[in-house]
């Protein structure tokens, strides 16, 4: 069942500031939404709103036509989110991190699956170290390896390329392009370019007033 993601006239107020208002977009399978904007324009907040982590002041986010706030688990089952925090446990090794997270999702993966996802992210030989000792970039890679194991249609990625070196950036760009080509959906923010092979790319620019109807 292929679903669509839609945001309708979202508004966010933080403190005294109206961060954004009347932001909307619609995303079909096989599409990528690149959220751009200056620092502090509200990209992270928008992404968290899409995931149901932040409640919009007005407006709503819909999945397959239904508001995600009423869908609950049903929506989360379609979603993989990589925030700007890596969400990996320092005490666990890379493999264990992936396995534990998959088990909690309800789709357990085997150790060899986890290992192969990590080695695709260029972490071969580092996947049995506790995450604590990894470098910034290695930690980011571990967090992103989750995407290679997920079979959810919707990926939401907040600055996924941060701290990655050129190799890793390439690998990730490739993975994203493949996901889109396979009728997946991606919402991401980044200050870099995101080339995709197939599918459609939309851009949503945040900032200024009357922002945000996706082009």
């Amino acid at each position, binding site marked *: 069942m292929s679903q669509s993601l839609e945001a309708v006239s979202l508004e966010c107020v933080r403190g005294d500031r109206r961060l954004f208002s009347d932001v909307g977009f619609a995303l079909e399978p096989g599409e990528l939404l690149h959220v751009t904007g200056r620092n502090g324009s509200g990209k992270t907040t928008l992404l968290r709103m899409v*995931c*149901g*982590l*932040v*409640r919009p002041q007005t407006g709503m986010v819909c999945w397959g036509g239904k508001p995600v706030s009423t869908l609950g*688990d*049903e929506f*989360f*089952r379609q*979603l993989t*989110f990589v*925030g*700007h*925090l*890596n*969400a*990996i*446990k*320092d*005490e*666990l090794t890379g493999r*264990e991190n992936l396995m*534990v*997270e998959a*088990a*909690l*999702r*309800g789709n357990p993966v085997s150790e060899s699956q986890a290992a192969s996802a990590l080695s695709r992210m260029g972490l071969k030989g580092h996947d049995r170290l*506790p995450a604590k000792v990894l470098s910034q970039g290695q930690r980011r890679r571990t967090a992103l390896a989750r995407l290679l194991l997920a079979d959810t249609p919707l990926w939401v990625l907040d600055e996924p390329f941060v701290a990655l070196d050129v190799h890793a950036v390439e690998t990730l760009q490739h993975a994203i392009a493949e996901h889109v080509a396979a009728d997946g959906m991606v919402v991401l923010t980044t200050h870099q370019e995101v080339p995709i092979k197939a599918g459609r790319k939309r851009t949503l620019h945040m900032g200024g007033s009357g922002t945000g109807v996706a082009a």
Partner: protein
Amino acid sequence: MFAVTGMVRRDVILAMRRRADVLTTLFFFVIVAALFPLGIGPEMATLRIMGPGVLWVAALLASMLSLGRMFAADYADGTLEQMLVLPQPLSLLVLGKVVAHWLGSGLPLVLLSPVLGLQYGLAPDVLKVLVISLLLGTPVLSLIGAIGAALTLGLRGGGVLVALLVLPLYVPVLIFGAGAVEAHSSGLGGEGHLSLLGAFLLMALALSPWAAATALRISLD
């Protein structure tokens, strides 16, 4: 149900990686229990009267101190955020975390309490009631504590703020927990107190995972 057991497994593995955590809660309990005779003087008669109260207060403080650990690490590294977007009821995940917290901070105290009780000269049957009261009471402390820990997540000085929030709700548990032991040792039978503790436990089991889950969603907004 699966969400609960999965969460418990995860947190128990993490606790095993950091065995120091569990051990230090235990040491804290032991040290507080040992400090009092130092602060107050070693008269056996006084100690016997104070014993149950001191042990209960020590257990309460130990449990409260370890509340900080319940969500803080998950919050800081972003795994809590991920938990909120897992396709599982959040309240069950929270329940799992609470159970794991109790296994690491409540259960060891319960198991250790008879030894410390002996030090205060408590009789065997009194010790039995002490253990039962702690067995019923410490999970309540973890459950209530979860709400406080979730509410104060990420606030600086949260450790002390959480104390302020949960202590008022801990007080009844303390009163009936220590009261059960006292009632028993004065020949009254502590059943009434114990069944009230049981009632607290059931009530906390029913309400607190839900309240803590709501608090988490609020704290991460």
